[in-house]
């Protein structure tokens, strides 16, 4: 009452037709029936998928170069750019005879992304000076264990026979 904005509840007595509810139920059923003939708003997800943008930010990938060598050199710029501190790595020195495996003389022997921490902002791919890390249109699937969300190199590095095209997401100003 202090604000003078309260509304009085009307306790109007219902008429007979209103009391048996039937007209209202039939009216409601008619609305439901009408929707059967309308276009569906949903899709059957696992079988059907909606198209995503070419630059959708999903699961990460560590690219290989044209010769199949890993591009990542463990410079740590992605980890320092990461606002969620999801990336960690350990570097190693390339040994003789591993030139076809790793592009630079230093490489990441351990590279881990915690997908629970990751916010998929894409700053890592922007920070990468070697065009090594990219986000893909693939999604990170759900797991039952937290440990499963820590992606190591086994799940991040691009497979040699299954290349992922990232040409559309490369920044235009890079040389």
């Amino acid at each position, binding site marked *: 009452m202090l604000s003078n904005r309260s509304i009085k509840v009307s306790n109007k007595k219902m008429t007979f037709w209103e009391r048996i509810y039937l007209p209202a139920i039939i009216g409601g059923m008619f609305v439901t029936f009408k929707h059967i003939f309308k276009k569906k708003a949903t899709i059957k997800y696992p079988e059907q998928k909606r198209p995503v943008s070419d630059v959708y930010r999903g699961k990460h990938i560590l690219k290989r170069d044209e010769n199949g060598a890993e591009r990542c*050199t*463990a*410079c*740590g*710029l992605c*980890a*320092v750019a990461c606002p969620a501190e999801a990336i960690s790595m350990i*570097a*190693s*020195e390339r040994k003789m005879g591993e030139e076809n495996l790793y592009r*630079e*003389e*230093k490489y990441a022997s351990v590279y881990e992304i915690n997908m629970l921490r990751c916010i998929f902002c894409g700053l890592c791919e922007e920070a990468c*000076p*070697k065009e090594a890390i990219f986000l893909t249109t693939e999604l990170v699937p759900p797991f039952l264990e937290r440990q499963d969300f820590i992606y190591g190199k086994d799940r991040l590095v691009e497979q040699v026979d299954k290349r992922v095209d990232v040409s559309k997401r490369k920044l235009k100003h890079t*040389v």
Partner: protein
Amino acid sequence: MPKVTIDGVTIEVDEGTTIMNAARKVGGEIVPPAMCYYSKLDKSGGKCRTCLVEVTKGSDKDPRPMPKLVASCSTPIMDGMEVSNKTSQKVLDARKGVVEFLLINHPLDCPVCDQAGECDLQNLSYEHGTEGTRFEEKKRVFDKIDIGPFIQLHMTRCIMCYRCVYTADQITNERVHGVLKRGDASEIGTYIEKAIDNDFSGNVIDVCPVGALTDKTFRFKSRVWFLNPMDAHRNCDKCSGKAVVWMFGEEIYRVTGRKDQYAEVEEFICNTCRFETKDLAKWTIEGPRHISRESVISQGHYEMQPLKIENNNEETK
């Protein structure tokens, strides 16, 4: 005492002081950058030309301006001299050119280099250089020389500042380190393998402004910005024992000298402290090292001392 005006700031300094040191007395923005000059090393300076300044008035006696830009690290001041550093467009343009020349033969391997994050050349090119490169030719290459178990030499990254040569000459007793050949082909060498035996040879790592000389015991271990620099000391019979330990958790990844705001070490430390004492129990930690806010090392680095909570409750006192 002679008076000198640098970028509009007038200061009285001793006779024979260089423009660089006069500017450093004032401090702040007007200090010219230096890649080769090192105040702790005799005769250093005059090599890299990054500290070029414009002398707009020679002195009170002869007020004509100097015809060319001069290297501030090796030009002594005169009474009434007027110098422009940041206020002169000529200087800024020249410095841009100098950075371009320094980078001509410097490889673009910062992602691999251990010096990245604390590299003088990185800072210099970030502040004074251009974004792109016009150099299309091949960069110089060298045969790899292994100079012992503690120091890694990357000759391709060297900018010929001669700091390590002077260090080896002055800190160590005998001449074991020098520059071979000339011009484009010159390289740090001679008896460098023998310099390793000296107790203070590790200081060439600290004086090196780029990643040409790096710590082999820290090679590729981590990036400097993931580490926590802490002031620490220990009883050492060879040096003062005052150093900075770079920690990752409870582990010491590397030990360096304490560097001041011009990236010059305050005191040289011995090889035992630097390379062989990585056990936390052997050091007394004084507290976090002050790191400039602009530096990438300051990310994740906290310098706040733990808060002391005053107990005002009489009963629990």
